[in-house]
């Protein structure tokens, strides 16, 4: 198995898809000749020529043309460089792509894949930092996934492009150049959906997705040191969402924490909590949501760091949920401030 970084895994998936599906097209701003601002589409233009091209800075034209090409048998894979930019052309995703199959009673379809990436990174401003998955998850007719590992970056994209409906694959630029891992390429197309138990545990279920998964796993490791066993459930597919997997885990642990980078109010964490509590699964403590407080994202790292959830804050909040005091005060206190901030975020 080749050792690939997250970005290289996306690139490998694109190469595979261009080979196995002649209907695929890859286009967007700077994705052709330059190979993408993050280098993720490198080598495609040279290899597949006209099927890969650069576009004007026209998100409505990029997305709209992808809807039209998909209606006519192509499988366009278009890139929206930052999820924030989708807001200049959301109509094409929500009012157009999502309606094609339903309104035509299944006689037409729009199997396009929208690759984008989102989230905060050091120094990024409020217009380049948002996590917008909740917006897309409120739209029936779309599929949405958020890979956090090289293997998922590969598998989810392959599944998305083979899917006969519009799919958003939301990547994260802070992961593109992360460590290399063995990635099984060329395997069978995996089914959509499903959750991953990234760490088994009995005291609390922590549901998360995207780049936060790394922070949650770090927090879970630290908690284990104090004898708190957190079960970390990653849900790379958010639509379809594996509600049963979450319920199964919560029935075992009796506690639920949902962690996402998006701001708390109206985030998809609310949906997860509502499904779990709505199911009547017995809980030993009120469920908690950990996310960015409801503010805009400031560019200064010193400010942004105090807002975006990190392992220390997650550890502190989950520890409080489970109700066991920290081993040593230091970490606890330091995180306590942030924890308080996070908890009051939506009050």
């Amino acid at each position: 198995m080749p050792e690939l970084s997250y970005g290289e895994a996306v690139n490998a998936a694109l190469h595979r898809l261009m080979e196995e599906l002649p209907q695929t097209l890859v286009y967007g701003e700077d994705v052709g000749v330059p190979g993408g601002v993050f280098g993720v589409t490198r080598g495609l233009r040279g290899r597949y020529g006209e099927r890969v091209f650069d576009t004007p800075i026209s998100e409505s034209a990029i997305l709209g043309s992808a809807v039209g090409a998909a209606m006519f048998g192509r499988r366009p894979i278009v890139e929206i460089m930052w999820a924030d930019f989708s807001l200049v052309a959301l109509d094409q995703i929500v009012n157009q792509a999502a309606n094609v199959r339903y309104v035509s009673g299944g006689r037409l379809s729009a199997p396009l894949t929208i690759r984008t990436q989102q989230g905060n990174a050091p120094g990024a401003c409020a217009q380049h930092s948002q996590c917008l998955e909740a917006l897309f998850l409120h739209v029936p007719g779309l599929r949405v996934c958020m890979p956090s590992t090289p293997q998922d970056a590969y598998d989810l994209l392959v599944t998305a492009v083979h899917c006969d409906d519009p799919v958003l694959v939301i990547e994260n630029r802070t992961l593109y150049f992360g460590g290399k891992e063995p990635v099984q390429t060329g395997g069978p197309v995996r089914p959509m959906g499903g959750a991953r138990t990234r760490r088994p545990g009995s005291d609390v279920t922590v549901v998360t997705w995207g780049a936060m998964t790394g922070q949650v796993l770090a927090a879970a490791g630290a908690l284990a040191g104090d004898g708190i066993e957190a079960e970390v459930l990653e849900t790379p597919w958010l639509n379809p969402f594996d509600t049963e997997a979450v319920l199964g885990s919560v029935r075992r642990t009796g506690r639920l924490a949902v962690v996402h980078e998006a701001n708390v109010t109206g985030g998809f964490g609310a949906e997860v909590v509502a499904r779990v509590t709505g199911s009547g699964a017995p809980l030993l403590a009120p469920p908690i949501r950990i996310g960015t407080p409801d503010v805009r994202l400031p560019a200064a790292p010193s400010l942004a760091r105090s807002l975006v959830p990190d392992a220390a804050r997650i550890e502190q909040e989950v520890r409080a949920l489970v109700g066991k005091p920290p081993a040593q005060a230091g970490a606890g206190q330091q995180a306590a401030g942030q924890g308080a901030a996070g908890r009051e975020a939506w009050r």
Partner: protein
Amino acid sequence: MSERRLADLLAMWRIRAFEEKVRDLRAEGAIVGSVHLCVGQEAIPVGACDALEPRDALFATYRGHGWALARGVPAEPLFAELLGRACGVNGGRGGSAYFTAAEYGFHGENSIVGAGAPIACGAALAGRHDGSDRVAVSVFGDGAMNQGAVHEAMNFAAAFSLPVVFVCENNRYSELTPIAGMVRDPRLSGRAAAYGMPGHRVDGNDAEAVRFHVRDAVEAAREGGGPTLLECMTERLVGHYIGDAETYREPGELDRIRRREPIARLREGLLADGVPAAGIDAVERRARAETDAAATAALAAPLANPATAREHLYA
């Protein structure tokens, strides 16, 4: 020659009879919701669709009943759609402003102003890769020329020489507002130059003129010449939607419009050429009879079944 003009007359009468029937059904309450009629604008779809081939793609607006008919969609499933019947072209899911009939080369109405233009670019783009030599026609109004998506689509099509024909139906109003006050230069075809593509103003009340220009643009597009913008000048004989009080009209405006509307004009032309009135009037009677029969059949069909309301969201 007068054969073709009689054919145009029949095609236009089929649209007008359809629209007038829709107006009546809406008045009776058999059709509900907002409905946009194209009475007075029939020459554009009739002339344009005559220049298209089955493989071509056509994207219209909410004012698209006439385009669907001109493309060959039978009146009955269209009435059924407007009436929320299971046998409607969309099984009742689209309604007046959003129906599609891809099997007839009609790729749909769209009720978001300007949204169809980028989608048409995609249909053209697909044609470049599937070897179909498809040309895509994007229809929108004068007001849509000020929508960002239309600008992006025109540049996208021009930059990549995509085979798209942009047909702007300039009926001088955007809903209740005269386009004249919403642009500095009312000659919208002039905007084509900004994208480096040809643009022409066309007599949109003359099916023959529309046919000529669309055929020419389609030919250029198929040969790799890229897109063309056609500004087809026309006028609504009716309100923007059914129920529009039309308070924005100047005194005598409707009388003036009636004098130059396409059906009356063609009728006069045919009479002047010695075509007997009886033959001309027979065309109208035939269209109305067909239309009434289609409406009657649609009314007799069962409503869309609520049990199916959640099907086909996903594959």
